[in-house]
């Protein structure tokens, strides 16, 4: 199994005022092709910093980071932007879609910044295809404020997919969603993972982490536990359970 992400003794120190904050202190991690990993931990554990480093939004103070075999730990801003565009797809907690812009245009956004030449027709085609994958092709013309939270997050997933990235990064993707919608969104992630896409997700919710295949638990800037998930939740099953519970509540009332 080829390592898509390989972290070697990563440190990250923030200099805020007089005190140096050691957010990450020596993390080594390998994530292979086709894995579905949840990075977990309480707030302040350094998981968000790890996410920023893995997402090439930030550079480690120390250590080396290989993404798809290339060392990206010392690239400059523009080179990092190009890497993000080509190899990474982001899904955020707050969806982060452009308001007053249609779903389709939101999905096309990364293609605007691609340096390979993509014609307008190809852009459209790829964006429509990405929306089809998340099951929202019929909502392409809707604006984010006309979509539900779950639908908005699926548009965000389509946007992350449109450049066929090596890794899909999700930062608390269900943080703003209710249980049912969370299960739906996790179902989309599981489906994508089944198709071979590598996914790295940051979350502090155990039940969300149980949808993944491997859980990495961080505390105080170091990895304290790294284990495969034994009883993996399957989104379809969970959804059915939720529906039954809902029915039961309806019947009893």
């Amino acid at each position, binding site marked *: 199994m080829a390592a898509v992400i390989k972290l070697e003794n990563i440190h990250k120190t923030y200099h805020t005022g007089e005190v140096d904050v050691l957010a990450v202190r020596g993390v080594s991690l390998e994530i292979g092709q086709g894995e579905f990993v949840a990075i977990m931990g309480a707030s302040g554990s350094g998981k968000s910093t790890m996410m*920023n480093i893995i*997402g090439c*939004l*930030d550079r480690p103070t120390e250590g080396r980071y290989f993404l798809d075999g290339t060392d990206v730990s010392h690239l400059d*801003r*523009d080179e990092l*932007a*190009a890497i*993000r*565009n*080509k190899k990474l797809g*982001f899904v*955020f907690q707050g969806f*982060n*879609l*452009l308001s*007053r*812009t249609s779903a389709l245009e939101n999905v096309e*956004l*990364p293609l*605007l*910044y*691609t340096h390979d030449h993509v014609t307008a027709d190809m852009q459209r085609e790829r964006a429509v295809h990405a929306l089809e994958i998340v099951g929202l092709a019929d909502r392409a013309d809707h604006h984010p404020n006309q979509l539900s939270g779950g639908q908005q997050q699926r548009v965000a997933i389509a*946007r992350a997919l449109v*450049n066929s990235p090596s890794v899909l990064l999700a930062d608390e993707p269900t943080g703003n969603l209710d249980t049912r919608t969370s299960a739906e969104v996790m179902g989309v992630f599981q489906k994508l993972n089944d198709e071979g896409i590598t996914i790295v997700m940051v979350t502090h919710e155990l039940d969300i982490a149980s949808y993944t295949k491997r859980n990495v638990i961080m505390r105080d800037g170091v990895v304290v536990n790294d284990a495969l998930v034994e009883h993996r939740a399957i989104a379809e099953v969970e959804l059915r359970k939720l529906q039954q519970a809902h029915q039961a509540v309806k019947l009893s009332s």
Partner: protein
Amino acid sequence: MALRALRRNKMRSTLTALGIIIGVGAVIAMVGIGNGAKSQVEAQIASLGQNVILVFAGNWSSGGVRGGWGSAGTMRVEDAEAIAREIPGVIAVSPEVRDHQQVLANGLNWYTQILGEGPEYLDIRDWPLEEGAMFTDQDVRGTAKVCIVGKTIVNQLFPNEDPVGKVVIIRNIPFKILGVLVPKGLSVMNTDQDDVIIIPYTSEMKRVSKRTNLNAIIVQAASPDVSDRVQRDMSDLLRQRHRLGPDRDDDFTIRGQQEIADAATATTRIMTVLLGSIASVSLIVGGIGIMNIMLVSVTERTREIGIRMAVGAHGRDILLQFLIEAITLSSVGGLIGIIVGVGSAELLATWKQWPMLISISSVVLAFLFSAAVGVFFGFYPARKASRLDPIDALRYE
């Protein structure tokens, strides 16, 4: 992409562009007014004639009381003849005497200027006749009772008839009208140049004002190149003829057309510069408006910038997006401003009867300047946007 952002904020974009619209419009209208005034003055100066040099008699003064130009009474017909005879490069000379008289004709009367001139006067001033003919050398020699009248005289004394062949009475002497002048309009000094009766200078001196001296001599040089030399030669000749020693001041004044033109155009040029710079201030204020709005926009769209950067936009892409927004605002504003400026200039021209001259160069300049304002005032906010840290920008609430 940049245009889409502008369309989303129609009201704000319109108001921002309005600053530029007013600025560019004001510049174009103001410079138009200034240039119009300048061209009018130039036209008036050209109406003096080509390469004209005026020689005024000096001013008389006695015991501190000083008369006006020509009051010294030192300029004589012989001086004019000497100039014509002795100075090379002089192609025409007209001795001039001026007077004001109450004239009668047709049962009507009118107070007007009487000009005594030589037969070449109209050629020097490049002043054609509408009808009839100029008096001749023979009329001058014979102190003939003939005259040429301006359009204002025709309007006042011969409202509904052809004046040629009719008679005007000046100081009880009947003068036969030989011709009518083409209207010339206002002079540089804003006097009506058509309110005039021109008679042979000999007739004026012997019959009307009964005097022996001239007010001025009007000289035409062959070309602008010889004009300076002719002026010097005339000065020498007149000093010699008037027997002025080296310690005495001139008893005459020579004015070249160029000097008169320079003085008059300098005034209007100052006016144009003044109006233009006041208008430019409003253009700069408009630019600051753009900068202000772009800064607000950058702050407001910090998250959007973060998203764009996260999905792979380079700093350059963001810079370009905001710069294009600013330039679009300013150049669309500039284009509308040109229309507004030209429109209001036309409106002022017809309403106030002001001359208006809008040159292509001032339009192009105003447009380029407005685009430059966009670049200049858009650059700082755009650079600020492009330097944002994507992590901070994404977390920005």
